[in-house]
């Protein structure tokens, strides 16, 4: 049971505000993922929740209790660090028992808790080893085990998988998902760079940018209905294509004449007064359909990348330096150095004015 409430939280280092107006309501049992470009303050926000970084403005509470000035150990949180942060001079068992020993739990209790966590994480054979005698994945599991034994209300993860190789990252990601499944009542906050991690793990994703929250929503919401250009481009890989144009027809279906000569129809409704407005349309590479008729975009394919089930088409750069990318099913290497016309289902065409989605006005 843990509900986290952040109200107008901000963080300033001297004069510089690195985070401001953070409002977030995290419900019990959620797995919230913070994503955002490097340096946007993900770690800082997580560390403020942990109590390692002072909250310089606003209120943060867990289960209705204001936590701003409560020391980390009394917040009922546990944190897993990117670099594992295992105590190098202690065995795995001692690493996992440290918090309980500090809390003066009885030896039997400690032993039981550690054994149970070790069983869950398959660490039993390594309990008497020092961290340096473990592989990266095992170390990360110890770090997670160290959190589990404390039975915290809130788990905090700061890029826990970024030091692991690709295969191990997938395996550990699944383990974390299973762990979450096994503890439906614990709340988790997870910081990552990795979109796949964010999309697969999160019950809700918080996109941070420019010191504030760009959008909060379920992975699908963020993917299908991004609130602004930033989220639209940040979620999804390769990122969404944006093209400028002018609204020529409004209504349930909006028609946009694009500056590159194409014509796009979007299912985002507009009103008559929008006619003539400068907008950007956004189409994800995977939403493009090859066409011979009316096209959103027509261009010369510069490079193709056949990935097996799909082929990525990289078009010649536009006048504004933007490179349109398309993703077509199957192997289509023959399209290299040809001219291809693409269109898309109006439901998949996003519409932005002044950086914000017209869906949300």
């Amino acid at each position, binding site marked *: 049971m843990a509900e986290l409430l952040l109200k107008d939280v901000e963080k300033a280092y001297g004069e510089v505000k690195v985070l401001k107006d953070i409002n977030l309501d995290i419900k019990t049992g959620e797995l919230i993922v913070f994503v955002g470009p490097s340096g946007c303050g993900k770690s800082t926000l997580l560390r403020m929740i942990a109590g390692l970084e002072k909250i310089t403005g606003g209120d943060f509470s867990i289960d209705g209790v204001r936590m701003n000035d409560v020391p*980390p150990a009394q917040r009922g949180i*546990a944190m897993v660090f990117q670099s594992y942060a295992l105590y190098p001079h202690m065995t795995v068992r001692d690493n996992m028992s440290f918090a309980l020993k500090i809390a003066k739990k009885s030896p039997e209790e400690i032993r039981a808790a550690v054994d149970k966590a070790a069983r869950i994480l398959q660490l039993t054979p390594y309990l008497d080893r020092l961290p340096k005698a473990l592989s990266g994945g095992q170390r990360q599991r110890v770090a997670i085990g160290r959190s589990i034994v*404390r039975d915290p209300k809130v788990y905090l993860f700061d890029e826990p998988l970024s030091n692991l190789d690709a295969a191990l990252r997938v395996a550990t990601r699944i383990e974390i998902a299973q762990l979450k499944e096994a503890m439906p009542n614990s709340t988790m906050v997870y910081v990552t760079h990795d979109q796949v991690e964010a999309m697969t793990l999160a019950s809700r994703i918080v996109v941070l940018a420019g010191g504030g929250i760009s959008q909060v929503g379920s992975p699908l919401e963020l993917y299908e209905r991004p609130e602004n250009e930033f989220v639209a481009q940040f979620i999804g890989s390769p990122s969404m294509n944006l093209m400028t144009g002018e609204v020529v027809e409004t209504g349930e279906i909006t028609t946009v004449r694009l500056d590159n000569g194409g014509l796009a129809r979007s299912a985002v409704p507009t009103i008559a007064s929008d006619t003539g407005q400068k907008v950007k349309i956004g189409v994800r590479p995977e939403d493009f359909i090859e066409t011979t008729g009316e096209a959103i975009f027509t261009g010369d394919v510069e490079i193709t990348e056949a990935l097996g089930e799909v082929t990525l088409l990289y078009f010649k750069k536009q006048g504004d330096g933007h490179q349109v990318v398309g993703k077509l099913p199957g192997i289509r290497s023959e399209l290299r150095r040809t001219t291809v016309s693409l269109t898309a289902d109006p439901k998949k065409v996003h519409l932005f004015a002044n950086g914000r989605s017209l869906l949300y006005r």
Partner: protein
Amino acid sequence: MNPALQAVITIGLGVGGCLVYFYGSNLFLDKVLYPPRGPNAGRNINRANMIRPWLFLFPAIVLLGLYLAYPVVATLWLSLNKQVGTGSEFVGFANYAQMMSEEKFWESMQNNMVWLVVVPAMSTAFGLLAAQLTDRIKWGNIAKSLIFMPMAISFVGASVIWKLVYDSRDAAVAQIGALNAVWMKFEGGIWSVLFLRVLPVVLLLAFAAAVAWVAWGMVRVVLQSDRAVGGLEKLARGLGALVGLWLVYVALSWAFGAVRADLPYGVPQQFLTIPYWNNFFLMAVLIWIQTGFAMVILSAALRGVPEDTIEAAIIDGANPFQVFFKIKVPQIMGTIVVVWTTITITVLKVFDIVLAMTNGQFQTQVLANYMYDKLFRAGDWGVGSASAMVIMLLVMPILVWNVYNARKEMR
């Protein structure tokens, strides 16, 4: 010729000579001895590369041999001989036997052992404390420079300074020694009781309690631990606990003594002549000097402790003391041991301080000064060399261990 000019010429010759030697010898190796040409080019390159390290090592080996190895052997030989007139005569271990029968030698041995325990322990402890505390304050770097400053003073200079601190004048005139100046302020009133009875008793009791707790911790692991404890470890822990018990006993008896002692208020004290305690007044000088060294090294080590392990401990609920003793100190244990042993070696060779302050009188003799006494004052080369050998034997194991630890640290 002007000595300064001589010095410049010497430096020029030395550096130039090195350059000529290294350049010339390598040139000879590559151009004349094993040129990488002709039918045996490959073999020649390999041979040249096998010889090259020795070219670089050669000067160092020769000089170390001449100035280190030879004197050791010569000293050993001298210690087995006795001067007869102008010549000498082999006497086996007679010099050692004579030395062993001298009271002054055993006094030196005993004092050296006390120095050996007290000075490294105090220097390392104070250094660690200073390192931790100065890292946390704004003017820490200034404090650090001040604490490090004594390192720049020669032992003799430091002794002179401290001799002044311990100096005593007639009761009628003002004291110039800081210690006596403070001492003369006590006259038996309430402050005297507070500072000279209550405070020491409290400190000693606290020390006794701390040691007792540590000793109990050592034994507890054996008694209650859930992990198997090896026989050797049991022995070590038992011994540690016994030493702890002994320390508790000492502290308690001192506390008792502090309560009962009849203090000569108003009489200036000759601190350097109070038997037994004067040793500690001498040790204070070396501790004062070595603390700076310990602090600098340990401060660097403390900075190297990964920040996130500390943060993890904070989240785990550790208080600052626990963070320091359970997370930081264990992680820099290797460095602590190196610092400790390095100071130990300095302590075993301690000489200047004793020479300058008491010259070994009033039961403050130490081995190095004893050796100097025998060699250069009594002119007894046999016994003097024998005591030099004893010092070397004592230093050797610590030196080996130190090198071993330093190498382990580097890996």
